[in-house]
């Protein structure tokens, strides 16, 4: 599963793309759990959102390898 990373999330995972091998997450909630465990630094920051196929997704949304998944830290455009 490929995860796009932006802003501070890019710094935390150490790159603009994160490849997660194996079946660690079937939905957004499980993905966050996996990330917080793998990169404990996420816990120091304000909550981030997950986008699935370029739309904000809540915890229950299912995800699979064919989805475009992105980590969205608090936005700060403008």
């Amino acid at each position, binding site marked *: 599963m490929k995860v796009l990373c*932006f*802003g501070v999330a890019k710094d935390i995972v150490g790159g603009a793309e994160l490849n997660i091998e194996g079946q660690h997450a079937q939905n957004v909630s499980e993905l966050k759990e996996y990330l917080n465990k793998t990169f404990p630094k996420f816990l120091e920051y304000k909550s981030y959102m997950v986008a699935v196929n370029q739309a904000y997704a809540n915890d229950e949304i299912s995800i699979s390898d064919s989805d475009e998944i992105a980590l969205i830290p608090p*936005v*700060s*455009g*403008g």
Partner: protein
Amino acid sequence: MADNKIDIQILSKPLSIDACYNFVLNEKCGGIDLFVGTVRRWNKGEEVTHLLFESYEAMAIKEMTKIAKTAIEKFGLESISMHHRVGQVDLEGIAVIIAAASKHRKAAFEACEYAIDTLKDDVPIWKKEFLKDGSYWVNSRP
């Protein structure tokens, strides 16, 4: 909704007020409001040297288009242009421009303010602030 009412762009070169103005200008409109967000030197007592913007471009375009459509429907705009910069922006440089055109001025003001407020809440764009003594992603300080 006709495409000639909405102009959304994410650009890595300096933004142009003229470009936004010329897009929204039309003979049905009597009032155009433009908001221009610029880089200021002082933020919460700290001295800024420059900013760096990055976007999740495909999703940002989608979210900005959603804002533009809502602004047109909600306030009865004739047209709207939203340009956001990515990359390095120096002091006094332009980070974002919103232009809203309507028959009467009240709607243009309201729509322009709605659009920039919502952009700042929803659009996946991130700003890294460079200070004299370090840098950090805005809204993401631990």
